């Protein structure tokens, strides 16, 4: 099967910032992203869990975005503008996709 090179960008970011991040992704021409819930974690700011929580202040979400390699720099620039002041983690992995016309 013919596969095409692409980048899988995974952004773990505070739940309160989800909308700001995805707005900026769309504004920067990203054709799609997927949000995965996160149930807990740990980092320099301590350990946390969503169990029993009502407020949105504590907790992260994972946003996965598969893009063509050429779109990566612009996307990272955009992401960084949101993540900068906030808790967040960005990792980029080489991947391959079918149906490249979508990215």
């Amino acid at each position, binding site marked *: 099967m013919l596969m095409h090179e692409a980048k899988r960008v995974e952004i773990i970011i*505070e739940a*309160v910032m989800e909308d*700001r991040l995805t707005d900026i992704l769309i504004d920067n021409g990203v054709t799609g992203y997927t949000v995965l819930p996160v149930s807990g974690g740990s980092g320099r700011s*301590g350990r946390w*869990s969503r*169990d*029993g929580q*009502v407020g949105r*202040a*504590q907790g992260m979400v994972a946003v996965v975005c598969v893009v063509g390699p050429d779109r990566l720099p612009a996307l990272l620039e955009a992401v960084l503008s949101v993540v900068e002041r906030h808790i967040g983690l960005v990792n980029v992995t080489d991947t391959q996709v079918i149906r490249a016309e979508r990215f």
Partner: protein
Amino acid sequence: MADAVSLAASNLVSPIVLSFVLGVAAALVRSDLSFPEAIAKGLSLYLLFAIGFKGGASVAGHGPELRLFATIAAGLLLSLLLPFLAFFLLRALARLSPIDAAAVAAHYGSISIVTFVAANTLLASSGLEPEGYMVAVAAVMEAPAILSALWLAARFGGGGEMGPKVWREILFNGSIVLLMGAFAIGALTGEKGLAEIRGFVVDPFKGVLCLFLLDMGLVAGRGLLSSRGVLTVRVLSFGFLMPLAGAALAFVVAQLLGLSVGGVVLLMVLCASASYIAVPAAMRVALPEANPALSLTLALGVTFPFNLTVGIPLYILAASSFAGP
């Protein structure tokens, strides 16, 4: 005095308070007891809807009053002013940085709706029915403190982001919209509407509150365990002093407004309590440099249990002593 002791005692052995205590205890022995996030949110949606609706229905019963508007205006003002008092105490007493002090101040200027609900419930069982519109006062007091706090952060700490987007988020925050919306529905449908859904918003209410407080106890207890580090004695003392200061201020204002004993107590509770749902999220967006553990631990781990166990009976006692012979 005998009355006071018996009131406090009966408060302490109410299922509501004991459920909270159970939650804290379970967290401290590191039990794995926990509520799914969706259930906790579902319980809070129920409580907001029910308390809003009942408040509105009660206003419909009594008709609009001038005092309603005066009390709402007073609540607004108190919510704008309390952060300044809190900020001052946090800087002077607790020695927090300006940014952290501003963030904590926002929480204490705003209100804790569960403390409000618990006080309401205790008042009802003491026969001190408060004004229904106090629910609306609670709703308007959720957000304004954020404004003051961000001004303080900008003025003294050089921080704080404030765009139109942040404002819309704060004003149309889910809990405000649900509380005011349910209040409006209650006010529009009145006693008839209440009769239709009494089996939902009245009969099981106290029990649901118990379950919610159990969950809050779990969250508060786990928060205390994981952020013992941030609670110095100075910070802790703020968690006890601030509600007393807020309640005292509210007491004076409430007397000027001429509220009923129940109404006085509720205004005291609103000023004495600190937000742990709406404001923490707003602070993460607008003041991300502030340490969130500090505000949450103070609001939920210190001030909330203080109000629930000692504060509310105290405020009831104060309000009823003054009210008359």
